């Protein structure tokens, strides 16, 4: 155990001193921050309304049922608020006593549509006959937000593995593996020690991504378990990249190929009709994609998840069995 931890600690220490690896550690976070600006609605936990303070308290309370309400004294103040970066709908009444919805134009579907429904409800005094989850964050209505988030998660998971690969490349280039092989350290300890990076980094990354994007209404246990299972794929990819690449340059080239395969799987999952999805069953990233989609949209049950994880672990195990000889030889 002490040896496993030493190997892990050394990798982390060394990684933070390697310009390329350090960049890879930061990249998913930078990408997420950039992505956040494309999906303003994801920032807020629920819907937001900038409501005219002159409206009846009853009306204000009605809006409070569906989201956060901010009160403003004048229409101009509401307009200024709506023009801010985040998603918020302005609500006021004109001289004729009719409701007016103030929007910027780039709001998520829910931010536009839900206030209309609420207004309709107030006017007609009917119950809101629409199923609406406060925690949906617009993810259901915005495939870009969902797919973007999952892509970021997949990148983070793969990067954990790639960092393992780069640390192996370093050991190969410097021949340090030889020095380790004449100590009591076993291959098993080495593999486990190296793998920890590929487990821990993705967990940190995934939760940071969700936090930066303001996605809080998801089952964190599901996220954790799914991330751990997915990391196995990253780890095997990492070992393979490390073993087939003789230096950092070929390492980066191989990494690109793997990202290409990954992207193709995701594009397949998005474009292919559900009936053709079986064509992607062989690809572990497909199951990661499907799993995280279910978790983010709050549609996945534990049963689904166990099924996805079963596929991921099963496929990873098969890949490992096929490459086991190569991995062992590569580490000799």
């Amino acid at each position, binding site marked *: 155990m002490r040896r496993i931890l030493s190997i892990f600690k050394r990798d982390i220490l060394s990684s933070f001193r390697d310009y390329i690896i350090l960049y890879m550690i930061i990249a998913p976070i930078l990408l997420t921050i950039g992505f956040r600006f494309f999906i303003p609605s994801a920032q807020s936990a629920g819907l937001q309304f900038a409501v005219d303070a002159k409206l009846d308290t009853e009306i204000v309370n009605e809006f409070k049922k569906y989201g956060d309400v901010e009160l403003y004294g004048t229409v101009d103040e509401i307009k200024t608020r709506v023009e801010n970066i985040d998603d918020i709908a302005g609500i006021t009444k004109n001289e004729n006593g009719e409701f007016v919805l103030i929007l910027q134009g780039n709001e998520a579907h829910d931010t536009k549509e839900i206030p209309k429904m609420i207004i309709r409800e107030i006017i007609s005094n009917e119950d809101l006959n629409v199923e609406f989850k406060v925690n949906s964050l617009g993810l259901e209505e915005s495939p870009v937000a969902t797919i973007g988030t999952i892509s970021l998660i997949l990148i983070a998971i793969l990067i954990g593995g790639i960092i393992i690969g780069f640390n192996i490349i370093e050991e190969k280039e410097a021949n340090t593996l030889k020095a*380790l092989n*004449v*100590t009591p350290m076993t291959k098993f300890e080495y593999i486990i020690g190296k793998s920890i990076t590929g487990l821990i980094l993705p967990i940190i990354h995934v939760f940071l991504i969700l936090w930066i994007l303001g996605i809080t209404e998801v089952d964190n246990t599901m996220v954790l378990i799914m991330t751990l299972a997915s990391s196995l794929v990253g780890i095997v990819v990492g070992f393979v990249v490390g073993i087939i690449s003789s230096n950092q340059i070929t390492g980066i080239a191989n990494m690109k190929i793997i990202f290409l395969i990954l992207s193709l799987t995701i594009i397949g999952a998005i474009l292919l009709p559900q009936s053709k999805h079986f064509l992607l069953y062989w690809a572990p990233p497909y199951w990661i994609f499907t799993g995280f989609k279910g978790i983010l949209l709050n549609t996945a049950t534990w049963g689904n998840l166990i099924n996805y994880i079963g596929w991921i672990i099963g496929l990873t195990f098969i890949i490992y069995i096929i490459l086991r000889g190569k991995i062992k030889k590569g580490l000799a």
Partner: protein
Amino acid sequence: MLKVKNLYHSYTKDDNYAVKGISFEIKKGEIFGFLGPNGAGKSTTQKILTGLLPLQKGEASIAGIDVKKPTEKLFNLIGVSFEHPNIYSKLTGYENLEFYKKLFSVPTEDPKVLLKMVGLEDAVNKKAGDYSKGMKQRLVFARSLINNPQLWFLDEPISGLDPTTASNIKDIIKKKKDEGTTIFLTTHNMHIADELCDRVAFINEGKIEVIDSPRNLKLKYGEQLVKVEYKENNKLKRERLSLINDKDRDKLNKLVNEGKIETIHSQEATLEEIFIKVTGRGLK
């Protein structure tokens, strides 16, 4: 301490052996020199003994532990200094040793003490990647001592070091020997072998040609050499002549009879000359 019997190794797993039936024993506390030209099979033998190559054929044991089934105990009692420095360049010298130290399960040395011993006290916190070649070599040398090895494998520990540093390293090797460490020293350098080794093995084309102490080898092969300086056609010539070789003896007789000799000394053969004599080839 180390027993090797009929060791064979083929990289191609056929009859093309890099090591062909090597046998030798090293006693506890002995410095054993493993000498031979490039490609003789020195590194191959050392790799098998340290577990870096599988033992294909033959027997080898270290302190009674079969090298074929290396145990944690075996790795705890050997130390290996590599010829080509293999270190973590993004870690400091200290961090390199500190990391390595944790891989052993026996009492270990203090990294700082070891670094000071090899003259790296000023570079303790410098990244090892920024070390000079000689500094890296000393770091690897220091690292191989971290677990207080009982059997210490040294591969060309002195080559490429400046004379002062080299002499410091030689002193450490001698000190370790005095403390009872058994040392397996691989080298091309006959002077070092002569100075440090209790016994040497000459290995050539995968076979051991001779094993003996440097002194015995010199007595056996060396005492019958003379170095003569003589004039021929008004030119001064120097030559080493054997007293057992008929041709050389005839030449010497002729020189004596003709009265051309200016100086004459009996000459101790160097290990290098003995090596050439024994194997029929040079060391380089």
